[in-house]
């Protein structure tokens, strides 16, 4: 507000006149009470619950004789530990017990639950936005770090531990200290063949896996505005790999068009009222961020990780650094790579396409585009695991499953699968995997497994060539 206007109102500048960030607005709208030490009791609009991080929370409720305060704000689904084999056969006994425990808990506590055989089942971070359960302006939590995905809608969404899951179940709130605000502005447009995943890996390589610690990152700039919702979700999803609590993209027409008509979203006049509110959320001009980073979109190339931390990544035509730290040396030894050596050309054994990072229909279309008329290289096992049953059905309606199956890919049921290797979808020791997931930690996809993170198109190129290659060299065909 300029001084002239302010004098018209004849009052000192108040808190409300101060330009606010999107994050400030989301935070302020959910503070129930500020505690003496400055932490806030924060109201939670949506709590997504899955089978792995909830059993001990329900057990805690039971032991204390507490109930779920707001089942109408809670949605449960099993995803991490479910078999993704066709027909869902081959579940391990302890996985079955975990699933059964979830089913017993949601029944006992009256929590809405999407059963495993429901077509809407899927990875919690895929189904939340897909069903319209996750909406702009909300606070969204889940006992899973990649809850940051939902920030793509312009919601404050973050992962919590099991004690906090119990806390939200019992109180519909969390005690939180306000994180710092960081903005990453991506100037210009991404080059053809460069995706949101490449942008995410580029940013993490720049700022490091602790670059966003203690922060909520708002992604801004032309390249971010140009992303579709799937791309924005991929970008926000990876915020946690930069150490951030959450990622955010301001809601805009792309967001509203995505949310409109989703089954659990407001409909009709209620939707219009919601949009009117959501339009007030973007950061005000002049709002102050604690930290600003600017990235030139033109500098982003298809990225591949070479090490065992998401920050250990490089452009496909770049390479592993010549001089490495002790940690990097250990990473290279684990990955069976040498300093100075590029990852391009490395032979791969397994390709994993899926996860909450890249398991949406847009990702599967990318893979099909590369796979069409080609075949999976000899000796390579390539899995496509849709992020949800609805993604799977959509892909089948578009005939993408046929393209992929004809090319020699495995077409599987929805779930987390080889992203974390909890169920039988695991790498064996020494196997090298081109993966569209988000973590390349030692043993993440199975003990001794070697993970290279990359985009769906790059993973598809790896599948059909048997090597890590630049997908742009393959030439991308259009879908018929």
């Amino acid at each position, binding site marked *: 507000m300029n001084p002239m206007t302010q004098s018209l109102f004849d009052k000192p500048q108040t808190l409300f006149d101060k330009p606010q960030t999107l994050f400030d607005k989301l935070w302020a709208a959910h503070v*129930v*009470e500020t505690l003496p*030490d400055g*932490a806030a*009791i924060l109201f939670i609009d949506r709590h997504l619950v899955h089978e*792995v*991080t909830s*059993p*001990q929370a329900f057990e805690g409720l039971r032991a204390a004789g507490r109930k779920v305060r*707001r089942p109408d704000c*809670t949605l449960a689904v099993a995803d*991490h*530990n479910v078999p993704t084999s066709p027909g869902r056969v081959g579940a391990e006994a*302890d996985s079955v*017990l*975990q699933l059964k*425990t979830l089913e017993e808990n949601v029944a006992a506590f009256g929590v*809405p639950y*999407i059963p495993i055989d429901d077509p809407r089942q899927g990875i919690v971070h895929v189904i939340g936005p897909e069903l319209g359960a996750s*909406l702009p302006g909300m606070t969204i939590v889940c*006992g*899973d*770090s990649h*809850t940051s995905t939902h920030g793509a809608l312009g919601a404050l969404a973050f*992962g*919590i*531990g099991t*004690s*906090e899951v119990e*806390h939200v179940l*019992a*109180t*519909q*709130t969390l*005690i939180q200290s306000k*994180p710092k605000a960081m903005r990453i502005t991506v100037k210009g447009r991404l080059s053809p063949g460069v995706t949101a995943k490449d942008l995410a890996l580029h940013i993490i390589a720049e700022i490091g*896996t*602790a670059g966003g*610690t*203690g922060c909520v990152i708002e992604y801004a700039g032309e390249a971010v505005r140009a992303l579709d919702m799937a791309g924005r979700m991929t970008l926000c999803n990876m915020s946690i790999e930069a*150490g951030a609590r959450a990622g955010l993209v301001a809601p805009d027409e792309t967001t509203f068009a995505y949310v409109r008509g989703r089954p*659990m979203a*407001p409909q009709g006049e*209620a*939707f219009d*009222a*919601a949009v009117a*509110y959501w339009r007030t959320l973007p950061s005000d001009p002049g709002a102050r961020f604690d930290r600003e980073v600017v990235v030139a979109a033109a500098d982003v190339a298809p990225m591949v990780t070479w090490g065992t931390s998401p920050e250990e990544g490089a452009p496909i035509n770049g390479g592993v650094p010549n001089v490495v730290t002790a*940690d990097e040396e250990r990473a290279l030894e684990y990955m069976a790579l040498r300093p100075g050596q590029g990852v391009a050309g490395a032979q791969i054994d397994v390709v994993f396409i899926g996860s909450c990072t890249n398991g949406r229909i847009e990702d599967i279309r990318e893979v099909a585009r590369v796979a069409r008329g080609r075949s999976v290289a000899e000796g390579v096992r390539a899995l496509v695991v849709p992020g949800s049953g609805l993604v799977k059905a959509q892909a089948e309606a578009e005939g993408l499953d046929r393209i992929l199956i004809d090319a020699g890919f495995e077409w599987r049921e929805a779930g987390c699968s080889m992203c*974390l*290797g*909890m169920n039988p979808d*695991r790498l064996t*020791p020494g196997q090298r995997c081109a993966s569209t997931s988000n*973590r390349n*930690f*030692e*043993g993440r996809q199975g*003990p*001794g497994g070697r993970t290279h993170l990359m985009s769906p198109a790059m993973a598809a190129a790896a599948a059909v060539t048997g090597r890590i290659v630049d997908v742009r060299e393959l030439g991308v065909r259009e879908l018929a």
Partner: protein
Amino acid sequence: MDAFTTLTAVAAPLPAANVDTDKIIPARFLKTIKRSGLGTHLFDGLRYAPDGSERPEFVLNQPAYRKAEILIAHENFGCGSSREHAAWALLDFGIRCVIAPSFADIFHGNALKNGILPIALPRAVCDALMQDAAMGGNARITVDLERQVVIRPSGEEISFAVDPMRRHFLLNGLDDIGQTLQHEASITAFEQARAATQPWIPAIPVI
């Protein structure tokens, strides 16, 4: 949660940065529906060879550190997933305090909620403590939460910062839910106000 007041114990040096939660407790051990019993799989990949035998070079397998209650590591300890199993595994093994230059946010919160004290100290100080820890059973480090100091075997005191509310909860072994429920009236008022100003927020339907 057990209260944390002071702890005098052997500290195990783990000189690595970005010790992630998959390293602390790999996903295949997350199938449990209990909090207890995860200690045997703490650092599973580092601690055991593929045939299940112990790797003698791993610090917690060495006689001096089998009963360590303090862990000293490098930057960004606990990065990765939100699994509270990481904190439960440390606790089940007997670790009550982790000292590192920095911690990942979610792990930091999870640790505190389970009576494990994460202490962030500058890298140089961690390196000095790492040297103390290298003396194994011959050196004990004391952590005094009341006074907010770490006491080296030499007697030197190093003060550390801790969130005052968390300190209060730890010292008294309080759990968050009980505390929050004292504010129940505010929560109800908030819910009512929200339903009035944003009536368009839908309920999740019963499926």
